């Protein structure tokens, strides 16, 4: 199914459309949220907010501005960051990068009741640490490329090509051609 077909289907807004949206994306949005909040129960609450938000704001999604996936990941990140900020820590977003998704996979694997991380763990560990950092900031934490380039102290152009190489490696590991 193409993204446009999917959006059309979801826009019908019946229960089946919701099921489709949930089956397709809940798990990955949950991954994004957990990477920021690091607490399963609170992440579940945020995921609920996020799914409701996506559902209610669907008419505002504009395909000309970006991918549907990008739009919903952005909603998930922003809600998670709001939640994170509302917590006692009150840290700046720049401090969110203390732990990245590799850490979150390890935490989950050690909890022993997690299903999804087991399969992917061995792939992710093969990614270069520099790649983990870049993907974490740009994808999971939602930094703009300018913010990420400042944070990692590498020029924009280098960041772009390095990130491209990282995603290329990720695709090879996950066998997405």
């Amino acid at each position, binding site marked *: 199914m193409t*993204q446009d077909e999917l959006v059309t289907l979801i826009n019908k807004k019946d*229960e089946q459309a*919701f099921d489709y949206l*949930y089956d397709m994306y*809940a*798990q*990955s*949005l*949950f*991954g*994004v949220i*957990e*990477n920021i909040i690091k607490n*399963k129960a609170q992440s*579940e609450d945020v*995921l*609920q907010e996020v*799914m*409701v938000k996506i*559902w209610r704001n669907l008419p505002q999604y504009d*395909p000309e*501005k*970006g*991918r549907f*996936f*990008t739009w919903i*990941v952005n909603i998930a990140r922003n809600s998670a960051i709001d939640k994170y900020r509302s917590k006692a820590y009150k840290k700046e977003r720049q401090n969110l990068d203390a732990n990245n*998704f590799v850490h*979150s996979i390890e935490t*989950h694997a050690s*909890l*022993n*009741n*997690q*299903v*999804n*991380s*087991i*399969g*992917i*763990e061995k792939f*992710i560990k093969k990614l270069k640490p520099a790649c983990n950092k870049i*993907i974490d900031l*740009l*994808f999971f934490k*939602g*930094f*703009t*490329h300018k913010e*990420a380039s400042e944070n990692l102290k590498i020029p924009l152009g280098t960041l*772009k*090509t390095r*990130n*491209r190489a990282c*995603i290329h490696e*990720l*695709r090879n590991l*996950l066998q*997405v*051609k």
Partner: protein
Amino acid sequence: MKIKEYIESGILELYVYGALEEAESKEVKKKIDLHPELQAEVEAIELALHRLASGTASYLPATNYAKIKAQLFKNKQPKSKIIRLIPIIGYAAGLSLFVTLSGIFYVKNQSVKQELKQIVNSKERIELENERLVSLEQEYQSKIDFLTDKNTKAIFLPGQGNYQESFAQAFLNTSDNKVVIDLKGLPEAPKGMVYQLWSLELNPLTPTNLGLLEPSTDNGFVSININPNLTTEAFGITLEPAGGSATPTLERLYTLGKV
């Protein structure tokens, strides 16, 4: 524009992240619409990130889905159709028919609701059970993966001294720096006591505490991470007072096995 160069520039990845400014994003979208190769590339990038994100998530219980669904669709109960009665047979007859029909529909509706509730309940139970089985299966799979990993070595720890009946097994993975101990061959630790695992260097005999082997529900398996810089020539298990000891009590060395 050379498509290949455009792809290699890395801008499509930033586009999928949402890391570009809105104007840049719109530019990219225009190009994607013109070139199917770009479309395919963007979809592949997205799929990889989608899998990565799902892969990092912990298990999402079905209750979460139910909660959202309830929130979104709670007000959308199916509406019963209103039967309009044209009063050709008189107001009284119409009214009595209406009362009778309402009664019938009410009773029917109640029993359908009841039935629906039961179906939903049993569906939830099945989902929960399924969830449990899926996670169990994954757990077993990850154990098998660990045990059959090429870097995992099985070490038998025979009983020592007065404890000839006891035994244990250690499965050491040198690339994960992890050891899994199977405790099934050890008697249950008496109250106030606990088994403790030691890494031993033999010459001279240097024990290093690896941790307590607390009874777990995990079929008698305990997994312990090992400092990669540690030299382990043998594993030993002693029985120590609750909380463990700084050095092993050798009189209560139950099992010992060379790596």
